[in-house]
C-alpha cells in the first residue's frame, strides 16, 4: 500500500486553483498550497491505512476570490465519493498578511487502500 493522500487532494482540486505542495511555484495569485502530516498504521501483515491532517491555504489579493476558491475546494473535497479515501472537514480560518488574503482549510484524510 502506497501513501497517496497528496495526489488525491491534488487530483480533486485540479482546475480550481493552481495547487502546490508546501511552497508555491508561482507568484501569480490565486494559488493554493497544502501541507500535511501523515501517519501510517500497521497490522502484522503490513500498513493498512494512512491518516493525515492536511492543511490547505488558498492565497489571493482579493478576499472574495480567496473565499470563492476555498468554497470550491470545500465542495469537491466534501463531495469525494472514492471510498478509498475518507475526507472530513475539520476547521476553517482566514487571515490577511501584507494585502494577501489566505483562507486556511484543515481536513482529516484517511486512506485505506
Amino acid at each position: 500500500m502506497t501513501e497517496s493522500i497528496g495526489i488525491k487532494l491534488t487530483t480533486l482540486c485540479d482546475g480550481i486553483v493552481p495547487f502546490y505542495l508546501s511552497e508555491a511555484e508561482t507568484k501569480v495569485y490565486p494559488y493554493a498550497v497544502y501541507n500535511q502530516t501523515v501517519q501510517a498504521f500497521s497490522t502484522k501483515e503490513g500498513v493498512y491505512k494512512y491518516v493525515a491532517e492536511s492543511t490547505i491555504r488558498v492565497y489571493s489579493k482579493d478576499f472574495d476570490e480567496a473565499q470563492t476558491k476555498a468554497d470550491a475546494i470545500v465542495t469537491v473535497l466534501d463531495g469525494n465519493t472514492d471510498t478509498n479515501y475518507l475526507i472530513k472537514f475539520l476547521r476553517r480560518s482566514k487571515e490577511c498578511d501584507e494585502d494577501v488574503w489566505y483562507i486556511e482549510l484543515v481536513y482529516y484524510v484517511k486512506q485505506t487502500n
Partner: protein
Amino acid sequence: MATSVVEGYNVALSIGTKTVLGRTQEDLSISAVTKTSITKDDAGVQQEKVVRHDITFRVAALMSLDSETTHSKLDRDDVIALALATGSSAVVAVSYACTGGTTYTGSAIITGYSESTSADLDSDSTISLDLKVIGTLTASA
C-alpha cells in the same frame, strides 16, 4: 550479532492452518499451577510443586473480511464460526511460531470472543479472541 530481538510481526498464532486476518497483537500466557505440601521432614518449610500449566492465547486484530477466493486467513466471520462451535468441533489445532525460534503446537478451545466498533473516525473496528490450551504445548522444529 549472537542475539537478536524478535520483532512482533515475526510471531504468529495459527488456528488450524491459518492466522487471523488483520492481526495487531498476539499474547501467550503460561501460568504454573502449583501444589503446596509439607511433611515433617520439611522442618516447617512449605514445598511447592508444579503440577500443570494453564496456557492461554489472546489474539487482537482489526475486524476484517476476506472476499478473496483463496481465503488464506481467518476473517471476522470465520472467527465467529469457530467461537460458536461446540463439542469436539470446538477443539482447534494451534501452532505458535516465531521466525528463527521454536514452534509450539497443541490443541485449544476458544473461551472468548469480542468485537469493538465505534463511530469515531480515528477508531478501527477490532476483534479479540481468547483461547485456552488443552493439556500442554509441544515444541517442534
